[in-house]
């Protein structure tokens, strides 16, 4: 018999916690619930969940505090749920170490997809399992070859420049996850590169022109407006 993955839902609104719990249980996860930040912290250490769904607006403390204190000792995947629609909050949560975010209101399909992605990334310890085994990552007709430093579309090398390849390689390593503009820039050009997104946007536009059929209707490289980029992942 399979051991079911355990998800801790930290949410003070009963009705939201209830529906998340119901949908996850019916999709084969085991769920436990916490109402407050303190309760969440103690349940994380006593129950060792595989994933935490964390609401940012908790009665006793800000969810961001829970996240940062959790990140000081654990890399347990965290999906942040927030009613705050300002993109700064999403970026802040991601930069603090959240694995993904959901904005209220969200649909069930979106919830399940984020949970699945976040759990998969822990099992393979950050790097994608496929990359570790074979040195490639494939989604649809797109293949990133990490050994040869190439990106293939329908088997054809699309000849990316070095920095273009490094962007795609980075997104591929975390396929399905949003990487913030700042994170990508720091990974590529170092911490002193500053907050100029323009060079990244130009690079992304060039990559899209090389790998997408229609750059304005991407199949692989998605934009999260105001937050960052996400590479498609295999369902």
């Amino acid at each position, binding site marked *: 018999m399979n051991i079911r993955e355990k998800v801790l839902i930290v949410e003070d609104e009963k009705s939201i916690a209830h529906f998340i719990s119901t949908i996850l249980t019916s999709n084969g996860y085991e769920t436990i619930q916490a109402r407050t930040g303190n309760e969440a912290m103690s349940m994380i250490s006593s129950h060792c969940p595989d994933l935490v769904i964390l609401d940012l607006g908790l009665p006793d403390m800000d969810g961001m505090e829970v996240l940062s204190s959790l990140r000081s000792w654990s890399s347990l995947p965290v999906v942040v749920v927030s009613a705050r*629609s*300002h*993109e700064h909050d999403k970026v802040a949560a991601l930069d603090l170490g959240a694995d993904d975010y959901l904005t209220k*209101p969200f649909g069930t399909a979106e919830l399940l997809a984020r949970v699945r992605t976040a759990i998969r990334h822990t099992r393979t310890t950050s790097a994608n399992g496929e990359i570790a085994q074979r040195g490639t990552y494939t989604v649809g007709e797109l293949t990133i070859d990490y050994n040869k430093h190439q990106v293939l579309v329908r088997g054809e090398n699309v000849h990316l420049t070095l920095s273009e390849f490094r962007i795609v390689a980075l997104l591929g390593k975390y396929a399905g996850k949003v990487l913030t503009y700042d994170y990508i820039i720091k990974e590529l050009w170092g911490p002193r590169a500053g907050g100029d*997104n*323009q060079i990244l*946007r*130009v690079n*992304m*536009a*060039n990559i*899209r*022109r090389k790998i997408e059929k*229609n*750059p*304005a*209707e*991407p199949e692989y490289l*998605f*934009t*999260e*407006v*105001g937050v960052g980029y996400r590479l498609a992942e295999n369902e």
Partner: protein
Amino acid sequence: MRQTQNKIPLFPFSFRDFLIFIGIFACAVELCILLRMADSSDGFASPVFVLAVLLISRFTNGYLFGTLAAILSVIGINYIFTYPYWEFNFTLAGYPLTFLTMLGVSLITCTMTTKIKQQDRLRAEGEKEKMRANLLRSVSHDIRTPLTSIVGATSTLLETDGLSKEEQRALLEDARDEAQWLIRVVENLLSITRMGDARTQLSKVPEAAEEILGEAARKFRKRFPDIKVTVSAPDELLLVPMDAILIEQVLSNLLENAATHGQTVTQIQLSVRQENAYACFAVQDNGCGIPPKELPFLFDGTLKRSETPSGDGKRNMGLGLSVCMAIVRAHGGTMEAKNLPCGAEFTFRLPLCEKESQ
């Protein structure tokens, strides 16, 4: 902020008012000195100073400087402009009465001008309040209809036995659709507050137009899988200074509008191209077009339910379109709508170069 508006201090002091006071008073004194060179009778002094008091009350806040000017005028006239010059003399026959009258007239003038100013301000505030109330009323109305049907559908499900599986499903789908429509109303309201936050100065960043179009189309496809959306962007990367979240909202509103009001829409074409110093975004559909009667009022939010015979009659996109208009305007752009031979087209233009004031 609100408190100072509601309770205006009677004697506020500000450096600006002080300067106005000194300036006007100095002019009055100067004028009187000049006039005395021409004519040595002193009859002109009082009216000139009354005028000075009037002007000071008009251009300063509160009663402080007006009252001060009134008292100083009386003293000044006595001291400078009545015989004996350059000294006080309250003993001349009839003079005390003259000065009392002068003081009275000045004080009343000052009080009345200040009152009128306050009434003007109250009226302006009242009008703003009325606009806000109108918006709130129309939004509340927009929200009440879907809420009624959500409560209705769910209560029916809970309280009625013997509904068939199909009937249950239909009720649930209704409730979900209505809730999703509410979400969109709230998103539009959030956009308004987002613009209010920035105090008319939006935080504009050069964004790749194709990314925003692509995202808007992707989200729309999830919601309306039956409508085919094609997106086209120029080969050359078009970077447009904008608040991306707001422009995405504009595009979603226009797409949504086409889907819910176009009736027969099966295809939507979303495009962006450069036109001189502007990026021109267009949303074209192949639906029934915009009723000619509604065209002139589309963007000002005055369309009422009763005036929209098209669509399902209860969906008021007035809010959505006026939000679009407000967002585009805040970007320094323009927006228009027109009918095509088959369908409708909404276009908006955003300036490509950022203004120096940024």
